[in-house]
């Protein structure tokens, strides 16, 4: 016990020291020639290596966009697979430059752990999946259900809150990974599986008979998932933040990987697009990048909509609809500040 305390104290001391010392990440990345990006060890649609060992996914696409913006090469990324336990220390110690690992933006992570969430690339929320045969149409009817729940996550706490507030009882079946949860749920070890709605959709898509299972309409928590960087290096934070904003804004202005070549050669009618793509103004230089930074970022995998459709959209096996992740003009929450 004493040892644990000592180790913890050392870790905290190290955290603060690293936080103070870890300035000028942008220069480090440029000097190194590669971006060290922390991703999940494997999450369907968000981050997974393909048969050739090339990382693919929604979070991975953001790493590639940042690498393209800073270094001009979307493949110049060193992916560091991080687990739920190692992700924050890997970032704090400087092993990775940014973390894009569907991490929920919470107060304590932002303030207490001394990280800076630079935006939200996916608005998620916790949902419930049940077999259709149960005949339940609302989460409020789940009194007395057995619930498969991943331990040590915010979902566990949200679940307890939800059932307490609605004065329902439940019996948790603790499980460790999503794959294990699928097996337990299919084997009937629990009536309900609860996790982020995106995860539920991905899980349901793998079932032999997806139609036999329904995802209940209630979303019981807010899970804004976003990339984060270390405290104390605002220049680097700006680079990641505005790369994400560039992808979102590109969708809003109709800039796609198909028409970007044409749009970026000469200044067009829309001054916002001109500033974004560097045909007008000095936005790139303000970030410490070259003028084509946003163009490179968008060309890496397309704008936000293209990245979404390619990795997790309705035409993929995961089949997520845009929902909250639509542009603000279409009733969603994506709202990139002006490029001015």
């Amino acid at each position, binding site marked *: 016990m004493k040892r644990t305390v000592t180790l913890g104290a*050392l870790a905290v001391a190290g955290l603060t*020291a690293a936080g103070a010392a870890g300035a000028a990440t942008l220069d480090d990345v440029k000097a190194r020639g590669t971006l060290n990006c922390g991703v999940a060890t*494997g999450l369907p649609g968000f981050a997974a290596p393909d048969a050739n060992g090339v990382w693919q996914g929604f979070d991975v696409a953001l790493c590639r966009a940042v690498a393209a913006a800073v270094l001009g090469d979307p493949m110049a990324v060193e992916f560091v*697979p991080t*687990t739920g336990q190692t992700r924050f220390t890997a970032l704090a110690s400087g092993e990775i430059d940014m973390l894009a690992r569907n991490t929920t933006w919470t107060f304590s992570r932002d303030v207490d752990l001394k990280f800076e969430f630079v935006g939200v690339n996916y608005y998620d929320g916790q949902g419930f999946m049940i077999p259709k045969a149960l005949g339940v149409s609302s989460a409020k009817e789940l009194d007395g259900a057995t619930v498969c729940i991943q331990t040590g996550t915010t979902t566990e706490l949200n679940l307890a809150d939800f059932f307490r507030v609605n004065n329902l009882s439940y019996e948790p079946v603790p499980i460790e990974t999503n*794959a294990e949860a699928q097996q337990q749920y299919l084997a009937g070890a629990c009536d309900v599986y609860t996790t982020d709605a995106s995860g539920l959709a991905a899980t349901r898509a*793998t079932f032999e008979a997806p139609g036999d299972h329904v995802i209940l309409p209630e979303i019981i928590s807010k899970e804004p998932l976003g990339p984060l960087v270390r405290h104390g290096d605002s220049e680097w934070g700006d680079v990641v933040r505005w790369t994400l904003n560039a992808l979102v804004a590109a969708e809003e202005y109709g800039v796609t990987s198909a028409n970007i070549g044409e749009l970026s050669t000469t200044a067009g009618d829309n001054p916002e697009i001109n500033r974004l793509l560097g045909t007008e103004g000095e936005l790139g230089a303000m970030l410490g990048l070259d003028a084509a930074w946003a163009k490179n970022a968008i060309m890496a995998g397309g704008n936000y909509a293209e990245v979404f459709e390619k990795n997790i959209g309705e035409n993929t096996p995961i089949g997520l609809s845009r929902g909250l992740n639509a542009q603000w003009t279409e009733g969603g929450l994506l709202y990139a500040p002006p490029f001015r």
Partner: protein
Amino acid sequence: MSDTHAQTAAFVRDSMIQQQDPPVSQSGAVKWVRENLFSSWLNIILTLASLWFIWAALSHLLPWMLRGIWQADSLAQCRAIRDELYGPDVSAACWAVITERWNQLLFGFYPQDLYWRPVLAFVLFLVAIAPVLFQGLPKKMLGFSLLSPFVIFWLIWGGSIWGPVAIALGFVVGWAVTRYLTPVIGVLPGVIATILAPIVYWLLVAAPLAGLLQDILPLGITPVGSKDIGGFMLALVIGVSGIVLSLPLGILLALGRQSDMFLINKVSVTFIETIRGVPLIVWLFTASLLLNYFLPPGTNFDLMLRVIIMVTLFASAYIAEVVRGGLAALPKGQYEAAGALGLDYWNSMRLIILPQALKISIPGIVNTFIGLFKDTTLVMIIGMMDPLFLANAIRATTDWNGVYWELFVFIGLCFFVFCFSMGRYSLFLEKKLRREHR
């Protein structure tokens, strides 16, 4: 033959009766079955219950395994093929995930055109380990065994050939100091110099020397980073390095713990108890996370090396205790006899004590090795690509999401093959070394 009874006996057989087979119930399989499986009511019930259990397990498992589909691009395709072949409600394994990701499970993200290097390294490893394991082979092969770690290291990680050469020279430096300097300066300073000289050489001379040699004669193959090494290759690299390094270290620690010298004794005891008292996971976290804070920023101390060091230290603490058990089992007379022969400490250990103590400890040592090899899967927790990590990653692609048992069955089988061979070898060694009761 007298004819005393010729009149009293009514009948005397004058020819030998034909030899007959024993009754069916008293020989062969039937006898064995009756004696071992159906000898009493309790045994009959237990046998039937066991048979039912085996049948129940196999009747589900075997069709699933044998119907398995070996060629498909994704789980959905697997299911389509299965529906076509057997109908929709039949369970069939989708081995195609292993066919498709075979290379990844074996080598991780190692560059595909360089697969020959780890394969060659593995063959060299087998050649190098053979003379250590089996006495019948020529002793000259041991020379290659000493050289092989450097060759294998160079083959797997690539890069300039002069790096491993420069490191190997460190051992030559140590040997030279023992050979030529020790007679001049005496035993204790000699031992200290033998330990210090290579360390000083490695820290100060080795890197510039390797650089210089590379400038003069650039010889090298494509370097491959540790982060690309994964799958069973990673498990083998960590497991084998841990096994090879932890045995000598463990023996030294065991001797240290038995030593009368205060400092050596206490250092050994502290080391063993500290390492043993903390779970391996904690040491792995220390290796991957805490060391980052302690080391000066910018030092890039390879994660795999850190993990190998931690695994080695961990296993050596266990080996030390196992060997200590062997040492304690020897009668004191053996120590005294060694002393009476006029042997000094190292010679008595080398010639009398350790051969006996190690023989006693074989099952325990191999047990520790098997545990160590299986523990390599724990590195998944710190984000290294061991087979289980890759199983997770494979499952995370949209193609294979939902595949579960096939990967576990395959990985489990591979580990079983390795561990079972180690166990068999230990039995072979025990039989060969059995001296007392034969």
